[in-house]
């Protein structure tokens, strides 16, 4: 009985963890796809961080004294295939929903559409920018470790 309980607990933990990382799965699925470009930066430079700090301070989450970037990555689809664009966009939205991201803003400017999403887990803040242009879809994912004031 104890063994069954232990195994069930482990399975539950693994299942919960796996189901909570759909966005990561999406990045891993397409990062090496020839239709996509993928970039990952482990430690953004000081200049890059200035923009990040402003972003964190203006976010909907409580103001933080400081934050440390845990890295950022971006997936870009350059395709004239409208069906592929649409399918990929749906996958992104579904992954964000599955990972329980909160949509914080949508901006349309001409044919550009930018959606921003956030998720806070413990002291970790995840920010996703979903950019849709004609013939171009970008998903930018930034991770921060925040320290409360």
């Amino acid at each position, binding site marked *: 009985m104890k063994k069954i309980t232990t195994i069930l607990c482990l399975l539950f933990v*693994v299942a919960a*963890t796996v189901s909570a990382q759909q966005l*990561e799965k999406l990045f891993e699925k397409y990062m090496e796809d020839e239709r996509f470009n993928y970039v*990952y930066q*482990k430690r953004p430079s000081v200049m890059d961080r200035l923009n990040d700090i402003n972003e964190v301070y203006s976010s909907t989450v409580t103001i933080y004294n400081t934050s440390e970037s845990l*890295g950022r990555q971006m997936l870009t689809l350059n395709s004239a295939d409208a069906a592929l664009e649409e399918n990929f966009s749906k996958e992104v939205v579904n992954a964000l929903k599955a990972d329980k991201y909160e949509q914080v803003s949508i*901006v349309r400017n001409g044919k550009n*559409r*930018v959606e921003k999403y956030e998720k806070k887990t413990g002291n970790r803040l995840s920010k996703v920018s979903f950019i849709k242009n004609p013939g171009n879809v970008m998903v930018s994912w930034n991770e921060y470790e925040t320290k409360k004031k």
Partner: protein
Amino acid sequence: MENIDKLLDKYFDGITSDEEEIILKEYFSKEEISPQHEMYKPLFSAFESEKQIVAPKFTIPDELNEKKSLPKRIWITAASVAAAILFIVLLNPLSKNAKTENNYLVYINGKEITNQEKAQQYAEEMFMQAEEIIRVSYQPFEETKAIKAEMDADKIFNDLSVEINNIESIIQ
């Protein structure tokens, strides 16, 4: 009867044989014995009950047996460690990239840019491109926010009332 007395004397001297002790025990196990021997009956009945005490058979319950089974314990420990590692690895959203020692990981159309300098150039250019799109898209929104911040209703009303007072004083 005399024989019993002699046997009792030998018993208390500790020199009785096994056979003689059996005779004594059989005698004292009877319901009716000589009144002079009644006082010894509890002693021999105690010996009899002592004889009946059997060491309890110690059996290890199956559940405890399993705990002591080394291979199973190792299996459970290994499973727990594996699950913990899996949990940590999966919990880290950038786990795959954390494995890379390099600061940059870039794939252009499915091909990895192994040169770190070039990878950095690509990465910075692509992040900058995205940031520029976001900046341009949010520009009207930011401008509206700035205008709102400048539009302090109290200040506007105060200025107006000062103007009105000035006009009134001139008229009078």
